[in-house]
């Protein structure tokens, strides 16, 4: 499958599969491919890691997990890998990424996410994590969300980009 067709397929699935009896066939017909080609390509993308997870993508907030805290940590550079590994093993943590500091206004280099039914449960989970992993010496901040303005899949393939000027019809 050529690169343009791959991009078109990525664009077609980035907001989800159709809920038809044969969703891969539906996609194939839209793109002028065979069902087997669509399935093979999606399998390849899972094998090579372009797709890291393939399935139901839930919206935590609408499942009753109203509290969403981004917990950010200032961890010495030589310890950040180790602490990142510890956090990623905690059940309550749903994301754990290293990001650069932006001094002087932003000192934090490790980001983790905790979703909970309410604010108190999240703070309790965080307190447990800090205690169980011996993290009390590190500065941290808890950024609860209080409004969701937008939530959808990453739009990596875009209609408005130079892909169009290269003649791609997405």
């Amino acid at each position, binding site marked *: 499958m050529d690169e343009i067709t791959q991009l078109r397929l990525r664009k077609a699935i980035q907001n989800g599969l159709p809920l038809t009896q044969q969703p891969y066939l539906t996609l194939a017909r839209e793109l002028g491919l065979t069902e087997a080609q669509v399935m093979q390509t999606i399998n390849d*993308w899972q094998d090579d890691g372009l797709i890291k997870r393939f399935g139901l993508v839930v919206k935590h907030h609408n499942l009753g997990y109203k509290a969403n805290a981004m917990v950010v940590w200032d961890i010495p550079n030589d310890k950040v890998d180790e602490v990142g590994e510890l956090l990623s093993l905690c059940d309550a943590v749903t994301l754990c990424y290293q990001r650069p500091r932006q001094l002087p206004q932003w000192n934090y280099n490790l980001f983790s996410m905790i979703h909970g039914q309410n604010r108190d449960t999240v703070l309790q989970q965080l307190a447990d994590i800090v205690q169980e992993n011996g993290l009390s010496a590190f500065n941290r901040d808890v950024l609860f969300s209080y409004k969701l303005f937008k939530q959808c*899949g990453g739009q*990596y393939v875009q209609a408005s980009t130079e892909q169009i000027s290269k003649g791609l019809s997405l």
Partner: protein
Amino acid sequence: MNLLQQQLIDAYQKGLPVCSRPYLEMANRLGSTESEVIGALDELKTSGALSRVGPVFNHKKAGASTLAAMAVPEDELAAVAERVNAFEGVNHNYAREHKFNLWFVVTAPDQDQLQTALKEIELNGGYKVMSLPMVKSHFIDLGFKVKWQ
């Protein structure tokens, strides 16, 4: 939320079948029917519990992305958020309790276009953008374990 919907969320946040009739295969495993599974998924989408049935792409391999933040006066937040959301590359966008109170993820096909988008967002949004691209992930995304009440 009915039992089938809970079962679907528990069983299929990863490993959606890639076969001709995936919803039938899911139904067979859960002791349901294909039309019930499709109906249940459709309802979950309509109710807002489900974003989609499909892929979560690896940020690094799929293109370029970053987590961005702005410090916006509270009374302008909704208006600025709306201007930021107008960009196709913005997917998540939350107000958070901090001096930096608007946090959003920006994705683009490549690094150049990401930087261009960030500049345009800054210009249109009216406030400086702090960009915090991922350096390393410590997390394997297996979906979210829901504790049903």
